[in-house]
């Protein structure tokens, strides 16, 4: 009897530890796919250069086209619907929120400058797209406190062509 009670206690402890491990692994997987998707989406947004301004020697990113390209790439990479909620087969379990989307180009910035906001702190040398997205923390183990959402920032910068 004593043995059975001890073993039951160990099994309960193990189950809790196991679910906690699974939850942390899920958090990490989701964070990684979010980060990569954010990078790819910001990349596509940064490609939406205003050709007219470019011919005048200024690098200007078209805000409407950039936002549209950003959301489209985000949806394609994370299998999301129009409202950014996960479709069947998506690696995410909750919807994605775009917390911040900002264009830094020749119309509003003088380069280089030190950018510090939304958990980012870095020198920006060329026109860029800054984006921050988030989703809810996966929950297998319910805890007393609500865990913070997974939030990933990125800066996609144009680079000088050195080829």
């Amino acid at each position, binding site marked *: 009897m004593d043995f059975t009670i001890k073993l039951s206690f160990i099994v309960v402890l193990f189950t809790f530890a196991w679910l906690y*491990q699974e939850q942390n692994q899920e958090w*990490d997987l989701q964070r*990684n796919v979010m980060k990569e998707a954010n990078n790819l989406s910001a990349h596509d947004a940064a*490609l939406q250069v205003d050709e007219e301004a470019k011919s005048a020697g200024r690098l200007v990113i078209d805000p409407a086209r950039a936002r549209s390209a950003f959301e489209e790439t985000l949806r394609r990479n994370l299998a999301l619907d129009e409202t950014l909620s996960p479709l069947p087969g998506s690696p995410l379990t909750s919807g994605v929120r775009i917390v911040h989307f900002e264009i830094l180009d020749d119309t509003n910035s003088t380069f280089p400058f030190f950018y510090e906001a939304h958990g980012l702190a870095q020198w920006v040398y060329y026109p860029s797209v800054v984006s921050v997205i988030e989703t809810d923390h996966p929950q297998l183990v319910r805890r007393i406190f609500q865990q913070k959402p997974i939030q990933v920032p990125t800066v996609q910068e144009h680079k000088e062509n050195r080829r």
Partner: protein
Amino acid sequence: MKETLLRAIYMPVLFYILLQPLYSYLDYMYDTAVKANAAYLTQKAAVEGKVTPQLRQEVINKLTAIGFHEDEIQIESDAVTRYRGERIDVTIRVNRKRTLFPYIFTSESMPDDYVGHGTIMSEYMD
């Protein structure tokens, strides 16, 4: 005698407790590696306009270095060169030969592959 029998019955539980976290962690690491390589390949393909044979081989080398066999790895992407603004899709599938314990005891089946997918606009200009 009774105690010995009890211990014999609970032995599989003990093995399960010892091995489950290791297998689960291993599976998660393989999944992470495949997804990270898919993202890397997608970003590189954007510059070249497609997944070139050199890029394909580079990723295969990285995945075989962590224990996958070359014939388990499938890299799917259009061979056509995509120009600036056109979309490139890249998918990496690697055969998942490992079955985690919980799936042995349920009717659910584990996904057959580790899958990494990325889509991006090409930067390539002729």
